[in-house]
Structures are given as C-alpha cells and as structure tokens.
C-alpha cells in the first residue's frame, strides 16, 4: 500500500466517521419527536442526572483551573504586555485569550476526561450487559432515553461550566490585578466590561455549544457501538476520548483561525 493509498483510506475513514456521527446526532434529535410520548419524566430524570454528573461534579476541577489560568494570565500578561501597553490591553488579553480561547478548550477538555469517557464506558457496559437490548424489548427507545438525554444534560452542563470558568477566571484575574500598581485593576475591569459584548458572547456560546455537542456525540456513539464483548469497552472509551480531543482542538482552532482571518481580534468582526 502506497502512502497515497494510506492517506486516501485515512481521509475516507474520517469522512465515513463524520457521516455516521452526523446521522447519529440527527437520530438523537429526531427521537425527541418520535418518542415524545415515551415517559417525559424518565427522560428528564436522565437529563438532570447528566447535568449533575457533568456540571455539578465538574465545578471544582473547572474552578481550580480557572483560578490558575486567571491569575497566571494577569501575572504573565503584566510582566510581558503590561510594561508595553497598560491595564486595558491586559484586560483584553484576559478576555480574548482566557475566556474565548483557553477557557472553552480547557472546560471541554475536563468534560472529555470526566464525562465523555464515562458515557462511552457506561453505554458500552450497558450493551454488554444486555441493558440496551432490554430497553428495546420494552418498546423504550435507547437513543431517546440514553443518548438524547445525555446530550441535552451534558450540553447544558458544559455551557454552565463555561460560565463558572469565566466568572472564576475574571474574579481571580481582578484579585491578582489588585497587587499591581494603582489604577490597573480599574482598567482591567473596564476592559473586561468592554470586551463582553452580546455579539462576542453569542459567538462564544455557539463555539462552545457545537464543540460540546461534538464531543458528547462522539462519546455516545462509541459507547453504543460496543457489541457484546467486555473487551470492546476499553477500546470504545479510548477511541471516544482520542476522537473527542482531536475534534475539539480542530474545531476550536478552526473557529479561531476563521475569526482571525476575518480581521481585528477575531471576535468583534465575525458577526
């Protein structure tokens, strides 16, 4: 097999996987309508459980990361950019780099490590243990009750975790700025308020939502792909984690490069 053959096979494999994932996502959305009479309370219970596992139990690691990143961005920003510019530029740095780039990437990374792997493992074990077969036998849609609910809950939790990250990072950044010369904290705060326009927030929400939906779909898909052997579960988990990470990085890099190519700081000119 030549290098061109290998490259072609790799590209075709990627296209096929993307097609299957899109179909899986479509099926998950369609089930909201097809299965609308299938125990809304049970579906809501699954959604809330996912919000708890992904969101509530993910607050501490995300907040800890946000504190470190927020403080480091101010400290390093002041050391490198501060002498050349001022507090306002430092605030823009915190907002644009930390909240719009690093924050969503790290938060989704935490969700991949904690939830995408867990979802893939749980669904895979449910397949092996014939739990999904039992749901099908009862006329209960496994896609609606296990996948759609996890996508909805996971996405809501991810959006909330991004808000937590942003709040903690800004608060820590402002606290760190308090150690800087007088006037800098106010300038940082003004820059933060200046950067938080509705357009930028909408764009950020879209970026986070698509990225989050992508990683969660990948986790659910690889979990449901397990057939009947326990040895398939760890394979599904590692495949889900790796593909989710690759998708996340490519998606975030693509959006950022597109924004930069459109001019300015990449965020104000996009809409």
């Amino acid at each position, binding site marked *: 097999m030549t290098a061109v053959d290998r490259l072609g096979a790799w590209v075709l494999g990627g296209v096929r996987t993307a097609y299957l994932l899109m179909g899986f996502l479509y099926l998950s959305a369609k089930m909201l309508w*097809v*299965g609308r009479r*299938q*125990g809304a*309370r*049970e579906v809501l219970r699954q959604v809330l459980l996912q919000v708890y596992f992904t969101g509530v139990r993910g607050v501490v690691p995300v907040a800890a990361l946000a504190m470190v990143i927020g403080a480091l961005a101010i400290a390093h920003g002041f050391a490198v950019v501060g002498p050349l510019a001022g507090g306002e530029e430092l605030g823009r740095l915190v907002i644009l780099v930390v909240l719009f780039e690093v924050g969503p990437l790290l938060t989704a990374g935490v969700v991949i490590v904690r939830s995408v792997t867990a979802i893939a493992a749980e669904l895979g*074990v*449910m397949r*092996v*243990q*014939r*739990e999904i*077969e*039992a749901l*099908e*036998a*009862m*006329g*209960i*849609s496994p896609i609606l*009750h296990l996948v759609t609910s996890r996508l909805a809950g996971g996405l809501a939790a991810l959006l909330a975790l991004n808000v937590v990250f942003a709040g903690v990072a800004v608060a820590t950044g402002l606290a760190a700025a308090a150690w800087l010369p007088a006037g800098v904290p106010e300038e940082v705060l003004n820059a933060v308020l200046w950067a938080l326009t509705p357009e930028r927030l909408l764009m950020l929400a879209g970026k986070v939502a698509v990225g989050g939906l992508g990683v969660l779909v990948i986790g659910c898909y690889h979990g449901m792909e397990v*057939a009947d052997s326990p040895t398939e579960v760890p394979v599904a988990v590692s495949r889900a984690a790796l593909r989710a990470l690759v998708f996340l990085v490519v998606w975030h890099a693509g959006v950022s490069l597109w924004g930069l190519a459109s001019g300015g700081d990449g965020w104000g000119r996009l809409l």
Partner: protein
Amino acid sequence: MSGATAGGAVARANASLVIEVERVRWRLGEFAAHPGQWVAVVPEEEAGAGDPAPAVGRVLATLAAPAEGTLEVLGSDPQRLSYADLQALRRRIGLVQSWGGLLSNRTIAENVALPAAVHGAPDGRHAGAVAGDMLDALGLASVAEARPHQVDRLTRWRARVARALMLAPAWVVVEGVGDWAPGGSAAWSALAAAVAAGAAAVVCMSRPAPAFESWLSTRGGETVPCRRGAPSAGPGREERR
C-alpha cells in the same frame, strides 16, 4: 395493528425460521402460538458453542430478524413495521432475558416499574403501585431497594420476569427455564397466571430438559425443535471490522 394473526394465533412462524448469530445457525420448525398456550423451543442436542436461547429469544421478541423465514407477531410482520409501530408492538411483548438486562443504576423496584413508568400501567394505576404488587407476588419485596448486582442470579431472573409481566403482555418470550423447579416457583406461577389470562408464552431453551418439557406437556404446551445448522460462509463480526 390487530391483536392476533390469521387463525387467532398470537405469534406464528409461517415457515421454518433460520436464526444466525456469529455464523452459527439454528433452524426452528413451524409453530403457531395461540392465546393461553405454551410453546417450548428445544434444541435437539447440547448447544456446545453458542447458546441458542438468547439468539432465538431475540428473534421471537422482534429484536432481530430471522436469516430465513417470516415471523408474525400479534398480526404484524415486525420487519415491515415503522420504528414507532415496532415500539408499540414491543409494548405488548414481555421478554425475560436469561442473563443481564436489569439496569444496574436502578434498584430492583425501579427496574420492575420502568415499563409502566414510561408507557403507563395498563389499568391506569401508578407505576410504583403496580410494581409493588408484582414485587410482592414474586417474593421480591425484601430486595426491592437493592441494586441488581446486590442480589443473586435467580433473584435477578425473577425481577426480569416481574418486569416482563408489568404491562400484561400478550406474547411472553422466556429465555431459559430460570428458577423452574418441579415443585413450582413464584416466577413460574406468575408466568402461568399470565398464560391462563390469555397470553401466549414461548420458552427458548438452551438445552433439552425432559423434566421441564414434561411439566409443559401437562399444560398442553407445544414443543418446537431447534436444530443446529451448518455454519454460514459469510464473514464473522471480527472479520467485518
């Protein structure tokens, strides 16, 4: 969707059904199960590699298609139904799996109540109340709050029977004989009561069990032979990857 096939049967194999899993084939004889009737699918010999009970059970419970032949359940060919109609059909089928199947993140009571919690109990009662009665009837009340992994194998089997009977199914598919004993058991009493009330039941056996077949024959049960066929030439799952 009507309630029975032509001739009043709840389920009918119009020709020999061929069931294939992992290149292992089983051929079932023709059968028609009428309301109030037992049917047992009995392998002619020890199964060896591959247990026919789950494979046959999956097809008879409409979860998989036969490789050859057609199965009609409650007046419908499952292969021709839309997904929504197939789900509606499955609500009238109770599958008792031989192993697994209980949701491990729920208690025994929650597992038993699940079909009624999603679809509603047939008599309009609260799902928990119906499940409570079922747990009492099958002697599961003492383990109602336990998780499936905290109880023994036969208790899990009884819980699967309870769950399968929650929606008063018209077609009950039982994989294996579970806790059957010549002296009787709570689970088999519940299954017998469902059949007496008008359901048809098929027991998919893993191996010949003369004592059980004798018990079934006293209740007018029909025995359907299940013969192992030659392996198919198609690719196995490992080769398809």
